[in-house]
């Protein structure tokens, strides 16, 4: 017997106007997968951050591009992949900065990747610039 896998895919134009659709999508699926309310909120935020980064950084706000989100869950895990065809980057080269330092430099960002790593159980990037960049996030289902 193989476990039943449920696969959901959403593909939308790369615009912050579509973050609300993306959040609706993942919150519904997270609830179906059996996450509790707090965990649903954590997943919602992590995926929002991941997609906002794609829209802003991978595509530089080019609204003709597409962002794809794939969610797959079985009994044990909920996996979310955020896929773009943008410029890519080297996640190991991004310094993790302190809130205090960011404020001192009057930055308005720099916290997204930290949130993603804090909220999800596993986070990995597979980067092929201009072809396919994939951020894979895993949330374990504790039952």
């Amino acid at each position, binding site marked *: 017997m193989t476990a039943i896998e449920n696969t959901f895919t959403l593909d939308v134009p790369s615009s912050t106007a579509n973050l*609300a659709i993306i959040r609706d999508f993942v919150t519904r699926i997270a609830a179906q997968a059996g996450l509790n309310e*707090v965990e649903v*909120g954590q997943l*919602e935020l992590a995926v*929002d951050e991941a997609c906002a980064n794609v829209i*802003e950084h991978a595509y530089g706000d080019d609204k003709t591009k597409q962002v794809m989100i794939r969610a797959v869950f079985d009994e044990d895990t909920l996996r979310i992949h955020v896929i773009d065809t943008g410029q890519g980057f080297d996640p190991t080269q991004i310094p993790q900065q302190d809130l205090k330092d960011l404020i001192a430099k009057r*930055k308005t960002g720099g916290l997204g990747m*930290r949130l993603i790593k804090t909220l999800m159980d596993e986070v990995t990037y597979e980067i092929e610039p201009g072809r396919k960049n994939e951020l894979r996030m895993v949330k374990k289902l504790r039952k």
Partner: protein
Amino acid sequence: MLALDGFLDAHTAPEFEKAIQDEIDADHLQLIVDCSKLTYISSAGLGVFMGFIEELRERGGDIKICGLSPKVDQVFEILGFHALYDIVPDVPAAVQRFTDAPVKEV
């Protein structure tokens, strides 16, 4: 005082940023942000609080944040905002805080 309603994400943050900028341009430096109707915040929303705070405090002002729901508060918490910002239960507490400590010591 500014009241936030609905969600504050990368799409709606620029509007909030402008609202704060307008207050500062009008020399309103003691800002209360009432989040009691805010249902969701992402780092783009938190970024608005980050960008202005130094300038405000240098000029003797501050931002007091109030009315956070548990869900929204969790995000402030994870990122360490509680150590660096005055976060209080409600609007009266925010007014009081401006009397007690006009500029938060960090």
